[in-house]
């Protein structure tokens, strides 16, 4: 059966962990944000049928989050989405659309 696990980490651990996952042959499955009392970022990696999620709690959207696109190029879409829709400050995205990945008629990032 497929296993799934969520591990909470600090921002500074993100890049080393991503490199660790890449070295272990894990593929990037998804990245998402959740606006709860605090901002939560979830980076999910898959290997065979297992799913491992790294969880980062952000005190605010202004906190700089390092991009993992140098390790996982496929993260560029997710990271632009985090920036465009949630206003998260991603630093070092190799394809940074600077807020223009989602061509929206309404103003983003969403505030409510």
């Amino acid at each position: 059966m497929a296993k799934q696990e969520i591990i909470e980490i600090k921002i500074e651990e993100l890049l080393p962990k991503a490199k660790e996952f890449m070295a272990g042959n894990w593929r990037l499955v998804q990245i998402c944000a959740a606006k709860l009392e605090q901002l939560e970022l979830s980076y999910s990696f898959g290997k065979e049928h297992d799913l491992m999620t790294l969880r980062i709690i952000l005190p605010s959207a202004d906190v700089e989050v390092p991009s993992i696109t140098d390790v996982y190029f496929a993260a560029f879409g997710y990271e632009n989405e985090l920036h465009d829709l949630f206003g998260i400050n991603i630093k070092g995205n190799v394809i940074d659309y600077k807020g223009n990945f989602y061509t929206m008629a309404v103003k983003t990032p969403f505030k409510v």
Partner: protein
Amino acid sequence: MGNRTIIPFGPQHPVLPEPIHLDLICEDEKVVDVIPKIGFIHRGLEKLVEKKEFTDFVHIADRVCGICSFIHGMTYCMAIEGVMNIEVPPRAQYLRVIWSEFSRIHSHLLWLGLTADAFGFEALFMNSWKIREHILDIIEDTTGGRVIFGASKIGGVRRDISADKLKDVLNELKDIEVQIHECADVFLKDSSVKSRLVGVGILSKEDAYKLGAVGPMIRASGIPYDVRMNGYAAYKELNFTPVVENTCDSYGRCVVRIKELFESCRLIRDAAAKIPDSPLETKVVGFPKGEYFARAEQPRGEVVYYVKGDGTKFLKRFRVRTPTFANLPPLLKVLGGCQLADVPILVLTIDPCISCAER
């Protein structure tokens, strides 16, 4: 170096069923770089979860996509069932497999038709869609809907298929399989089809894995990754093996989809033969508290549903990562260095579903 020009492709283009915009940076007829833009049909479905009760939200999940509607609804239900530890009755698990596979057949036939249309083979396009109509008739006959099935429910399914109806369905499926064989022969053997697909849009095994490709995109590059191998619903009891090709090109992706049509027919027949008698649903008691990632194999590849609840009737967060979103980086990879005339085929090769990618 030739003249460098930027050619806008989409969001409105004859080959695009849904809007995506690509800036194609070309040197003469060669595409050297691509810049995609999405967001034309963002519907805010993830936000809507805060205003709909978690039981009613199944109807929204059903509408994330108009082609693989059933699997979206089912995966949402699987996510809630995962949070609430609900065990789904066996008959419902088999019915989920049957409807999922009918979804796959109709989606792959739709793709075959669109691809034939993209390279100008109109008779093949119409033939693929003619066969698809019979599948839609079966779906309507068993669920009441042709596009939105509305058959998913947390804890099980909303409808049953009687033994007599199942027998009729299998008889019809036998005829449909013969028609698919005839149509597939043209796709697999015709020289004009091959001339547009063979060797076009190479995605190596390493790139497919590193770029997070899913579905026929990754399986045509020699990697046997298919979420059905996890054994969700009743797949664990049906000896499922994924279809894999090693050509890494557009032809390989076409072959994978065609072989999957027959594998889906086989899975439906096996599921119909083994379907047990049981209630159709487990009653849902309480509200979801906790979080869960559910994954299923859609016609386009792996879909991921994430839900988080705090013990109230409204979820705190719902997120869906669709196969099209995962296949965007591999698409950019295959477009780099291609000929301008191959762009429509290569865009179609990932079977793009933009409205579900944008949610």
